[in-house]
């Protein structure tokens, strides 16, 4: 039996006294933990995904939406842009652009987006192939690790895509995709994408519109066959665009009416003044919009930041109140326990020991509160992660521990100490004789 044991027994003996303080602590700390975890992971994911993409070209609209759609694959596209318009950006000899990567969106399979692009897109995130071989021809797809895992797809499997990003409204049944490879988990947005060639996306949509037009026609008619026919008749031969973005620079009659959702651009030199002027010039002189992911994301975080700051302030306020509640509960318990404290002095306890006893009680309450709070925060994160996965296909972990949580524990102990300070001083100054005489 020592002071720590006695403090613990005192807290245990009157759980109701400490319940309110504990609940407030759990609420405040839990809220902060969720904020910390979400913030850390969202920032981490955003950073990971926008690294290597300096500029996004797309249809005019909201620049933030364009970024959210083309870089993070959360929002819907702003519209389409004519391939003819962006053709110059694919020029190998462009003085400012190191790489331009086309994106064609519009279809999905079981909530996972199908992205028509080139192999260059994988280089942006240093993706590695886990099994199989990257798509080599149209209607072959490469799956992100999470897509394969969740949909239980293997190399060689086939599936039919759906038009749009939500629940399947129309299915492109005449153009089944074949899984040619699966990527290793990469930590980037690629994990949740289905990648294929741009022409695959074009063709499945041609089939789609065709189907709508020929609504009353014979459904057994083989649309794919039609397209293959058209392609066969096309002259000159179609440039190689299945794997390589550079192919889009070439002029080809088949490209004339074609569209892309957006183009991701890597600069050669970030500090070149011409580079810095390029977005403005695109926005002013073309039908397209140029948006910088880094700038848009930091703007977004600023906007969310206000709400996040308010929430954080609220959480700290709750912790403050829980500190006050610890203070009150200790202060009240001193009144009930005055005789016990006097007894401890009779048994040989010094003033310092009584001081320490009450301080330990405050610290213990705060410690229990903060530990349960962090636990609650992680459980909350687990629930939130599931929700966010469903809505955005983004992966969030609840089993991640941040160094900020250590600060949180230290901070809580400070709160516990300060809350216990005045009661502890009072306990140490207790007049033994008078207290005993009162009985």
């Amino acid at each position, binding site marked *: *039996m*020592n002071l720590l044991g*006695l403090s613990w*027994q*005192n807290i*245990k*003996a*009157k759980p109701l006294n400490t319940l309110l303080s504990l609940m407030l602590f759990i609420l405040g700390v839990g809220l902060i933990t969720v904020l910390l975890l979400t913030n850390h992971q969202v920032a981490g994911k955003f950073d990971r995904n926008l690294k290597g993409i300096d500029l996004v070209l797309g249809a005019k609209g909201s620049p933030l939406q364009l970024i959210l759609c083309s870089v993070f694959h959360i929002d819907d596209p702003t519209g389409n842009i004519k391939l003819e318009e962006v053709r110059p950006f694919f020029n190998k000899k462009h003085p400012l652009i190191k790489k331009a990567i086309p994106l064609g969106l519009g279809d999905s399979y079981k909530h996972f987006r199908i992205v028509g692009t080139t192999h260059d897109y994988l280089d942006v995130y240093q993706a590695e192939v886990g099994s199989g071989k990257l798509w080599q021809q149209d209607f072959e797809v490469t799956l992100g690790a999470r897509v394969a895992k969740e949909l239980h797809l293997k190399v060689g499997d086939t599936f039919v895509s759906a038009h749009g990003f939500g629940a399947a409204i129309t299915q492109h049944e005449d153009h089944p995709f074949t899984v040619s490879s699966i990527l290793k988990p990469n930590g980037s947005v690629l994990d949740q994408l289905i990648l294929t060639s741009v022409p695959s996306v074009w063709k499945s949509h041609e089939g789609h519109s065709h189907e709508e037009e020929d609504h009353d026609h014979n459904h057994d008619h083989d649309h794919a066959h039609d397209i293959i026919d058209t392609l066969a008749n096309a002259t000159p031969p179609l440039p190689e665009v299945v794997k390589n973005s550079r192919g889009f620079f070439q002029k080809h009659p088949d490209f004339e009416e074609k569209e892309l959702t957006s183009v991701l651009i890597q600069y050669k030199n970030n500090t070149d003044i011409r580079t810095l002027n390029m977005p403005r010039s695109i926005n002013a002189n073309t039908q397209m919009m140029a948006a910088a992911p880094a700038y848009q994301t930091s703007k977004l975080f600023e906007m969310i930041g206000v709400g996040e700051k308010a929430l954080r302030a609220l959480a700290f306020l709750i912790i403050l109140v829980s500190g006050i509640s610890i203070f009150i509960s200790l202060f009240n318990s001193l009144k009930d326990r005055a*005789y*016990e404290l006097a*007894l*401890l*002095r*009779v*048994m*040989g*306890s*010094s*003033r*310092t*020991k009584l001081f320490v006893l009450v301080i330990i009680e405050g610290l213990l309450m705060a410690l229990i509160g903060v530990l349960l709070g962090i636990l609650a925060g992680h459980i909350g994160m687990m629930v939130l992660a599931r929700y966010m996965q469903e809505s955005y296909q983004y992966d969030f972990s609840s089993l991640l521990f941040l160094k900020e949580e250590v600060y949180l524990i230290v901070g809580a102990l400070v709160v516990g100490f300060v809350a216990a300070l005045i009661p502890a001083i009072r306990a140490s100054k207790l007049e*033994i*004789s008078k207290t*005993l*005489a009162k*009985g």
Partner: protein
Amino acid sequence: MLNVTNLQFAYPNAKPIIFPDFKCGEGEKALILGQSGCGKTTLLHLLAGLLHPKQGSIQIGSQKIEALSGRQLDQFRGQHIGVVFQKPHFIKSLKAQKNIAIAQYLANKKPNLKRIQDLMEQLGIGHKTNANVQALSQGEQQRLAIARALINKPQLILADEPTSALDDKNCAEVIDLLEKQARENGATLLVVTHDQRLKDRFQNQIHLEALTTH
């Protein structure tokens, strides 16, 4: 062993109380009698070092306790003085045995559960080791309080009205136990009381009168 000389105490804004000089040898017992309000409890608190005398000296063994600093006095009290109160109070959050153990801890003695158990056996509450203190009967509580006062083998046992809340049977038992334990531990026993039942049992009696300076 216990030597009180020229002892005076004053509450704030009140006339000082003058106590008679008295001595008590090792292993001896004495009764301090007096009407309520004459300073019996004050004397006991002075002897226990819970109050500081205005003047005079209290010597316990070879130690003049007024010479000790606050912390030293706390330590001395824990190790050498056992106190039994009229109404036994305990640390409610602790079980019976732990209430004794905490006295060992506070006196900086090594925890000795066997001694606690032995003592509780001797006092007839050996089966109450893990009992809730509030669930004990009055007599059991007073025995537990005696066990607590005795656990550190004090030189001096001070008992403040230890029997006045008890019926005759328990009164006799408790005072028997106190005397027996004091004798076995070689401790000086000082009982402060106005309980007339105890008068015949103590030869050494100190009468306090409502003494104040005139």
